[in-house]
């Protein structure tokens, strides 16, 4: 048994069989099959060989026209191996004598051939063929396992996916019912895969370091998404302990959720706090409902653009938004317009790619949209169209000046007029809000408050811009601290401006999901928090454990402190007093 330590990025405990995705996206499933399956595996092999041979012939034909007959012949020549009697027989005998799965038998046979090539290294022929043979392996495994383009092929039983790394688009396609946990060799806490795993609520551990060569597909592994452990080949005692822990987790969250869902978040002195969910994908709307959220406080729309080479169509936008709005019924859904740029991934071949020296201070978000109005309008139209299905509000990210806000509103009006003219229905009087995440917007909050229906404080970026520190840059990351008094003062400023103007304000950054900050925010007058759905039940408990008056005096005292460290320590103490069994932030 080995315990490998990585970074916990999505909590939960899962015990299950490994499904290994190697670097080239080639799947190695179980190594062996039960004896009764042998004939089936031989049939699978034969079919795959025939299909691969045919594909090779087709490829040769189509490439002959493009690249000329000689080159095409090379590729076609590969196809000749698929009916090589000796080659095929070697694979078959591994299946029959060692009960290997077809995939494993193919892989073993080819790897053995490659080894023979390596031992004849002095022959120039030998070197040439290595990649040809590996290509054969890939082609055959591809046929055996179906289309490997996106996500997993036909996998029926729940698995734990293990890989060196996973691309966001691969992860986004995972079905949490099948992929019960993830562990990767590379990756960090803020990588997109980590965020996606968290969003999909799939327990995940990343950055474990090399471990793939130490396991085989089908091995039992344990993913501990709390401690950040990947346990290989667990011994009986560990297996028993974790089985119990997993069981307890399932029951606990089950009971908790069943109750929490229906009880509103009201403080001891009768103040109601709205708890909303932050989502990225349409299916997460269900998570919000399951957790008893009052609505979606932040619908991030970037995934529609990430990893694509063409812009999403208005219809694609509309389908995604409509799905969420319909799921949420009459609960509010706040849709944020494109916030791409900075560390959000845009592939270099995308027309949106614009290399900058200082992307966080560059053409991001609403600035990008204002310079790409057709793109902006497409999204706005889709949001307006989706508004007929429910209670939709629209929000603009990274607004840094009053002019920008006015321009956004003007373009929104144009979009409304366009729809009007085309006779396409939309709900009139859609609520318009702005994110407050750039210090300039916080400082001018009183002016902006007169021009919108609500504010949403994006604390992640607000902290970054206020302290001028990149949270992903390890050498300065410690400066990035939500507890810093400067940030708290800005939040207070925004909250006061909203109250004075009579508009709503919510906090949608990570801060709002942390119990100790929730206390502070409520004390500063915030009455709506939007967090990742998973956190909502706990936030509800926090709200129910405190009185707003008490929270206000906690906030008063906290605002007098001078350093982030003092604030953190003070808030932790207060949280412990208010809710002795709270989960504390790390």
């Amino acid at each position, binding site marked *: 048994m080995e315990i490998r330590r990585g970074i916990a990025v999505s909590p939960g405990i899962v015990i299950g069989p490994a499904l290994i995705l190697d670097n080239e996206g080639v799947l190695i499933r179980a190594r062996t099959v039960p004896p009764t399956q042998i004939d089936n595996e031989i049939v699978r092999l034969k079919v795959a060989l025939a299909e691969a041979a045919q594909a090779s012939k087709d490829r040769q034909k189509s490439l002959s026209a493009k690249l000329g007959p000689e080159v095409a012949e*090379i590729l076609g020549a590969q196809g*000749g191996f698929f009916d*090589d009697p000796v080659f095929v027989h070697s694979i078959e005998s591994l299946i029959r004598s060692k009960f290997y799965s077809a995939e494993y038998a193919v892989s073993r046979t080819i790897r053995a051939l490659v080894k*023979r090539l390596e031992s004849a290294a002095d022959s120039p*022929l030998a070197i040439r063929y290595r990649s040809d043979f590996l290509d054969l392996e890939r082609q055959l495994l591809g046929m055996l396992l179906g289309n490997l383009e996106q996500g997993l092929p036909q996998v029926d039983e729940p698995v734990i996916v293990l890989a060196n790394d996973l691309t966001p688009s691969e992860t986004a396609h995972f079905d949490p019912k099948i992929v019960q946990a993830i562990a990767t060799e590379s990756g960090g806490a803020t990588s997109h895969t980590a965020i996606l795993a968290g969003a999909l609520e799939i327990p995940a551990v990343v950055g474990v370091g090399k471990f793939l060569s130490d396991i085989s597909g089908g091995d039992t592994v344990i993913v501990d998404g709390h401690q950040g452990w990947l346990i290989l080949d667990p011994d009986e005692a560990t297996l028993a302990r974790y089985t119990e822990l997993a069981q307890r987790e399932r029951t606990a969250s089950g009971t908790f959720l069943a109750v929490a869902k229906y009880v509103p978040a009201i403080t001891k002195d009768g103040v109601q706090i709205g708890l909303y969910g932050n989502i990225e994908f349409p299916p997460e709307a269900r998570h919000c409902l399951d957790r008893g959220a009052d609505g979606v406080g932040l619908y991030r729309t970037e995934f529609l653009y990430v990893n694509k080479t063409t812009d999403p169509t208005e219809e694609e936008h509309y389908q995604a938004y409509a799905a969420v709005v319909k799921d949420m019924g009459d609960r509010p859904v706040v849709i944020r317009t494109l916030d791409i740029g900075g560390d959000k991934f845009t592939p270099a071949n995308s027309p949106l790619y614009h290399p900058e020296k200082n992307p966080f201070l560059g053409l991001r978000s609403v600035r990008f949209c204002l310079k790409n109005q057709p793109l902006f309008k497409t999204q706005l139209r889709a949001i307006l169209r989706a508004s007929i299905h429910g209670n939709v509000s629209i929000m603009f990210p990274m607004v840094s000046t009053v002019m920008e806000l006015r321009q956004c509103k003007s373009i929104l009006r144009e979009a409304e007029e366009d729809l009007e003219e085309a006779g396409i229905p939309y709900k009139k009087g859609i609520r318009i809000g702005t994110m407050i995440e750039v210090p300039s917007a916080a400082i001018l909050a009183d002016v902006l408050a007169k021009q919108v229906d609500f504010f949403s404080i994006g604390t992640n970026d607000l902290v970054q811009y206020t302290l001028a520190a990149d949270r992903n840059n390890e050498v300065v990351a410690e400066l990035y601290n939500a507890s810093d008094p400067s940030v708290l003062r800005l939040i207070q400023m925004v909250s006061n401006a909203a109250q004075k103007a009579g508009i709503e304000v919510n906090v949608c950054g990570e801060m709002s999901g942390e119990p100790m900050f929730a206390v502070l925010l409520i004390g500063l007058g915030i009455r709506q928090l939007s967090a990742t759905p998973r956190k909502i039940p706990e936030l509800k408990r926090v709200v129910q454990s405190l009185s707003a008056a008490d929270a206000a005096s906690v906030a008063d005292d906290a605002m007098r402190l001078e350093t982030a460290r003092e604030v953190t320590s003070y808030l932790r103490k207060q949280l412990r007093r208010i809710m002795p069994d709270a989960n504390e932030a790390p």
Partner: protein
Amino acid sequence: MNTMGLIRQSVVVGNLPMGLHMRPAMAFAKLARTVQGTISLTHGEKKADGRSPMELLMLFAPPGTELILEMDGDDADCILQSLIDILTAVDGADESPAGS
């Protein structure tokens, strides 16, 4: 009708500069499969089944290598010369260098 019984012949590989590489190996195997009986090529200690392009490749036979071709079966003599031609061809319309 093969009146010669077992055919055993020495063949010197041509196909400059690569020798018995993928193309001739494939061609050889393809032709070999059109007849009954065994066909083998031996290089020193290694004996390859003539119907397996994989085994033929694994002989790693550069130009100038002497291979022993053995055949039996009724139709062997029909294709014998063609097989030899494949192995010894001087005119090698070759693949691009340095593999893909």
